[in-house]
């Protein structure tokens, strides 16, 4: 009988040492990481300014902002998981609604009977809520659903930004009457009676000079969350769900009316949409549409000359590995003159490590196709806990776009987590997961609660560094919607964060001296007057950065329409190229830096 060869004692000992060494690698690596983090966390404001070039000071109270988001109370059949289902609704968008040159803040509320707020920027560092005065406060009445977000766009080109309010309920359109009052024009516009929406964007998909509107449903539109006919309302899969709300594409007919054309234009998805962003991703002159979906893959709708959309998510590489998409933002991360797309997802230690996606285009062979590669891991912007809203912005004016990500899902009992029960049900068969009656009770536990935010600064060479704690972002509210604006017209982007069941935070930004900037406030003439979709390329010191005027991005948010470019230490710029949605191209040569430039589309 053959005997097994027995290894020598030295080899046996060596093997054990090698095995223990392998086990020790991650422990040593983690200790090293923790040490670095704890050293960095004790950074003072002057040190942060010196090291990272900026510091964010939470200033909501000092600025006169005292808004607390209230969550809805839904049908009693959902009582056992109420905080889980009612975990969205906090949203913020930026607008200069009265054209006084100062950016204002609109923030929505989600409890029945609660009021939305419109914080008018008084130009002296403080704000005053004027929502009730202008008719935008009392919009969450019983029976009409509750607000989940708002996007601003001048749909009738009268020079004032109108607002589309989306809800888990009846969507509303308000016309801006000269910056003094808003008139409800929902019926005239022909909007549907009920949509459980979590995303909407204004964009002019056919470049006819009139803003159109995309609206993405989350729960199906026949579900009234306050009067449930069935408990089978949940997704039929945690990663492949296709039983969510329908999508709407409203074509602006130009007389205050809209025609719903989604099916005609090729948008037929029933995925659970949480975010969308429109941008010309291929340089065709027409805006494409990127939709991030919860419980599934993202979708990329290529705009075929304004005549039809073609969904190519799978071919493009963004629609293959399903996750829990919660934000969609575009930014030119490496100053290459092209848009990258950032999508947030869920990462929870040892349970579900999806990682966020930074989709960067590969070399493009033709305008009819585009391929993306996920570079989030390489760039260091992947692990962000339970990430919701994310926005690109050059926070330290060094010439490269940084990234702010709001995190945290449900913060209740600090010491008890719902993750075990959540994972139990999430992996089950669709007949089990889709019925709320099968979902274990939340019992006051948290689900990825009390999370620290992520502020990633871009080194411009392919790496981001996480500095939130060091630059003053220390809150642990359940962050949802993030919007950026230069509220004091001083060349620094401030950050506004809407938190679920939490306060609206205003992080005022102090940028270290010596960094330059330039801003543009565009107004369309042949194009839509909001200039949504206009692209601006700034060329300086060998850099080329592309930005666009957006009609909504991130999670339930909209940045200021003005475009802000950090320039680092450069004292001049070569030129600025503007491509208007109408196709008109305009070049500004050597515009002055450290100024905001108002630019009208040439006729």
């Amino acid at each position, binding site marked *: 009988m053959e005997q097994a*060869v027995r290894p020598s004692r030295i*080899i046996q000992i060596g093997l054990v040492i090698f095995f223990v060494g392998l086990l020790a690698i991650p422990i040593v690596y983690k200790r090293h990481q923790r040490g670095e983090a704890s050293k960095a966390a004790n950074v003072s404001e002057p040190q942060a300014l010196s090291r990272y070039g900026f510091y964010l000071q939470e200033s909501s109270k000092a600025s006169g902002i005292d808004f607390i988001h209230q969550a809805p109370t839904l049908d009693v059949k959902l009582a056992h998981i109420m905080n889980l289902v009612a975990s969205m609704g906090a949203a913020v968008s930026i607008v200069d609604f009265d054209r006084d040159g100062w950016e204002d803040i609109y923030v929505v509320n989600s409890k029945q009977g609660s009021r939305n707020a419109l914080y008018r920027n008084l130009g002296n560092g403080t704000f005053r809520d004027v929502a009730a005065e202008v008719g935008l406060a009392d919009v969450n009445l019983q029976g009409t659903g509750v607000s989940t977000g708002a996007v601003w766009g001048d749909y009738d080109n009268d020079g004032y930004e109108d607002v589309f309010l989306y809800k888990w309920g009846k969507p509303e359109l308000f016309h801006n009457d000269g910056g003094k009052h808003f008139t409800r024009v929902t019926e005239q516009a022909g909007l549907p009676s009920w949509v459980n929406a979590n995303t909407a964007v204004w964009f002019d998909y056919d470049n006819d000079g009139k803003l159109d509107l995309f609206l993405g449903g989350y729960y199906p539109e026949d579900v009234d969350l306050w009067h449930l006919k069935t408990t089978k309302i949940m997704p039929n899969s945690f990663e492949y769900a296709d039983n969510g709300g329908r999508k709407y594409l409203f074509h602006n007919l130009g007389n205050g009316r809209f025609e719903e054309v989604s099916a005609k234009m090729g948008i037929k998805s029933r995925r659970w949409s949480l975010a969308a962003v429109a941008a010309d991703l291929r340089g065709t002159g027409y805006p494409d549409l990127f939709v991030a979906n919860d419980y599934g893959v993202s979708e990329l709708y290529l705009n075929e000359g304004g005549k039809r959309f073609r969904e190519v998510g799978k071919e493009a590489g963004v629609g293959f590995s399903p996750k829990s998409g919660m934000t969609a933002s575009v930014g030119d991360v490496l100053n290459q003159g092209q848009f990258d797309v950032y999508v947030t997802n869920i990462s929870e230690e040892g349970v579900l490590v999806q990682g966020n996606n930074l989709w960067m285009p590969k070399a493009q062979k033709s305008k009819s196709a585009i391929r993306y590669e996920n570079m989030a891991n390489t760039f260091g912007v992947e*692990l962000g806990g339970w990430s919701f809203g994310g926005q690109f912005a050059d926070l330290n004016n060094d010439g490269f776009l940084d990234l702010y990500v709001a995190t945290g899902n449900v913060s209740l009992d600090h010491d008890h987590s719902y993750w075990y029960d959540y994972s139990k049900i999430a992996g089950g068969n669709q007949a*089990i997961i889709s019925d709320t009656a099968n979902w274990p009770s939340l019992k006051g536990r948290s689900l990825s609660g009390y999370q620290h935010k992520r502020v990633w600064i871009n080194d411009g060479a392919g790496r981001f560094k996480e500095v939130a704690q060091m630059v003053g972002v220390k809150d642990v509210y359940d962050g949802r919607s993030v919007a950026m604006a230069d509220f004091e017209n001083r060349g620094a982007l401030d950050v506004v964060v809407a938190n679920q069941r939490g306060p609206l935070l205003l992080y005022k930004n102090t940028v270290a001296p010596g960094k330059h900037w330039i801003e543009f406030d565009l107004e369309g003439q042949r194009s839509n007057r909001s200039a949504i979709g206009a692209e601006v390329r700034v060329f300086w010191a060998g850099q080329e950065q592309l930005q666009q005027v957006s009609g909504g991005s991130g999670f339930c948010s909209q940045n200021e329409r003005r475009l802000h470019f950090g320039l680092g230490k450069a004292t001049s710029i070569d030129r600025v190229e503007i491509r208007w949605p109408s196709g008109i191209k305009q070049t500004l040569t050597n515009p002055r830096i450290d100024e905001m430039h108002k630019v009208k589309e040439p006729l």
Partner: protein
Amino acid sequence: MIRANSVNALASTGKAENRMSAIGRFFSAENRYLPPLLITLILVAGQAKFGLLESFSRTALAIVTSMILDLVLARLVIRKWPNLASAYITGISVGILVRSPAFWPYALCSALAITSKYAIRWRGRHLFNPSNLAISAMLLLVPEYVAALSIQWGNDVWPLVIVWILGAFIVWRVRRFHITLTYVVSFVAFSALRSVIVGDSFLAEVAPITGPMYQLFIFFMITDPRTTVKSMRGRCLVAFLVAAMEMVLRLADNVNAPFYALTIVGPIAMAIDIWRTSKRRPNGTLRPEVRAGSVEAPAL
């Protein structure tokens, strides 16, 4: 003519028998390449349909690490060229079951699994299921970067049916189906018990076993011939105890309960089995299957 026909008929029969015996050999328990082939089929189909892997490159990294390290350690430790089917399966199981957006956990997990095969032995036999031990270690040590497969095959019934057909076929061929069956029955019974204890619905408690990760676990991990005990009754008892330990861990809200349960119960059962076997074989001779070049079909 008649004779010629008879010869032809005999020749045809012989060919048919040869064909049958070739097919029989291919599907036999001794064909070490059948499980890797079928698991690869599951993997490729799952990736094509669901994109269940983080990426092919990460899985490839796990497989290559596993096979290279197995070659090196086999030469070093037993001074023989190993059959790489087992290392391939270890690598592929790491590639499927480990979920991480980073690359390094796949290499590290494979390295841990293969090294454990050589480093942790008693009387020439494994104590731990290699990939189970490695995945448990990763989940314990680096949960920030690693999770186990859970929801990535969707919640549809068809992937389960396919895995059940292929899985049942494989474990039936290696005569381990009773382990799977015992575990499933035990899990369902414990689900009912947990439902009573924690107050959640029975469907919520039984839900995990209707998901894809469990299909891999019950067919390809707990049935590993090299890390199961000798007697059929003993194997059924171990499967029951794994399910029981899992219930205890589940009551403590442990998300990765099945992996940890097997990591705890498996080596204890193996140690008892080895001790009992050695008592019966005082000269310390090893079971034939533990020698280098063993013919038993590998599992996860």
